[in-house]
């Protein structure tokens, strides 16, 4: 008997997945060659599952800015902002983010996960209620657990269900905070933000939108689904990450609430962790600049997303509800998903294996994330491999003609 015995069922499930071939939870890149390609198990592999939406991890100017910052200001800050001080870069980045969103305040966190942990556990306190979309990311669930507020789930992307749950609270005192995501990471679907904002106004709630997968991806200026839906005046907090479209690591929250900065001495996941190193801050500032200056990057991403989405849809795969840089393919079973994922890696295509309970509706998914850095040839090669394996595993019909005949 050891303290780890409780993990025996998890261990058994893990062994089942690993027994089918490679270990999807500890995939190893021998060498990362570019935003869209790596060497894995000795072969060149197309990266189709790294959330590198704008392909900025190898941006030359971002690399130079990071290298310059590490020489000027050192490799790390060795402590937190409140104990060890703020570097010029932290303050610059916060100003840039606030300006980008047209907000009065911004706070930078050391990861996107910590941004949700910090904001959710702090802004909603004892006696308040947080209403979260049922398909929320783990960082949202964990942020709720860390705080003192009561937490209620509403059905995914269902504003009527949200309204029903707010109505049940109508005689209960306290503030309400509604939490939704711009793009949901498993299926690539977006929140019905205009309708949710209407419910928010009707019930006098606050609204937080997590734009982790939509910053730099949606909106004419890259400001995410909030911009695309035109509800910037209705949102109280936007949370996001630097680790996807901005190609680095870190998280943030922007807001127009007048006393927002009090959170700097109240929010424990901000206060008690080391701040981001100068090199990361410098590359993020540069990458945010590219998001602002180059709408063409977003257009390229949308074109690429559409290319892969439609190729796979036409081939007969079951995908998420809308064209999105996240293209998730529904698998008929966990076993087929694991076999398919292994076959793709052997064919030189890396994407994500997403299994229940991390997925909506207990679905088994092969989740890909398209990048502006993918060439049409790379996307076509990946699609060709996916279709070939899909046919051999009977996930899709052998040919289009056969599919027509079945209809």
């Amino acid at each position: 008997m050891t303290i780890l015995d409780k993990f025996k069922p998890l261990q058994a499930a893990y062994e089942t997945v690993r027994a089918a071939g490679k270990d999807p939870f500890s995939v190893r890149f021998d060498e990362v060659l570019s935003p869209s390609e790596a060497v894995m198990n000795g072969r060149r592999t197309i990266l189709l599952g790294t959330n590198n939406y704008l392909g900025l991890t190898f941006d030359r100017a971002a690399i130079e800015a990071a290298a310059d910052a590490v020489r000027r200001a050192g490799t790390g800050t060795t402590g937190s902002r409140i104990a060890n001080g703020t570097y010029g870069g932290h303050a610059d980045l916060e100003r840039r983010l606030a300006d980008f969103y047209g907000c009065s305040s911004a706070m930078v966190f050391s990861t996107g996960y910590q941004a949700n942990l910090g904001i959710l556990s702090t802004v909603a306190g004892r006696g308040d209620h947080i209403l979260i979309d049922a398909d929320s990311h783990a960082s949202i669930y964990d942020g709720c657990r860390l705080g003192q507020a009561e937490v209620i789930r509403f059905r995914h992307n269902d504003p009527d269900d949200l309204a029903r749950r707010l109505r049940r609270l109508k005689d209960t005192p306290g503030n309400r905070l509604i939490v939704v995501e711009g793009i949901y990471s498993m299926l690539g679907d977006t929140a019905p933000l205009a309708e949710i904002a209407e419910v928010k106004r009707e019930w006098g709630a606050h609204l937080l939108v997590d734009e982790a997968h939509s910053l730099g991806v949606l909106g004419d200026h890259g400001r995410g689904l909030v911009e695309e839906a035109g509800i910037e005046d209705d949102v109280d907090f936007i949370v996001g990450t630097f680790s996807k479209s901005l190609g680095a690591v870190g998280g943030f929250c922007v807001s127009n609430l007048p006393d927002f900065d009090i959170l700097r001495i109240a929010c424990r996941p901000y206060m008690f962790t080391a701040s981001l190193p100068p090199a990361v801050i410098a590359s993020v500032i540069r990458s945010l600049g590219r998001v602002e200056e180059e709408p063409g990057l977003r257009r390229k991403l949308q074109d690429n997303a559409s290319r892969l989405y439609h190729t796979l849809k036409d081939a007969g795969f079951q995908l998420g509800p809308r064209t999105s840089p996240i293209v998730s393919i529904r698998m008929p079973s966990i076993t087929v998903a694991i076999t398919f994922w292994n076959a793709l890696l052997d064919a030189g295509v890396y994407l994500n294996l997403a299994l229940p309970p991390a997925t909506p509706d207990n679905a088994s998914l092969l989740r890909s994330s398209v990048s502006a850095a993918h060439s049409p040839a790379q996307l076509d090669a990946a699609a060709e491999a996916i279709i070939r394996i899909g046919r051999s595993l009977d996930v899709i019909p052998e040919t289009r003609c056969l599919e027509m005949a079945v209809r």
Partner: protein
Amino acid sequence: MPQTNEIADVIIDMIGALPQAKRGVTPETNIVRDLGLDSLAVMNFVMTLEDRFDVSIPMDRLVGIETVADLAATLSNLMGAERA
């Protein structure tokens, strides 16, 4: 207001409608261990209960719940508090 045992009967009926349904569910049945529901399935089941009884069950209230009877008692408390 329904009594706790009446609530338990409704819960047992609703468990019968789940895809993972098992026969012989009683108030003493352990929801996670005996029914084999994972954490997500439990949370989704709680949502249907919320709608059936028109009451909110905050997630932190689920922590101490093991059996159908525990769940019925929690619902009864929440509904009592609401009407008090």
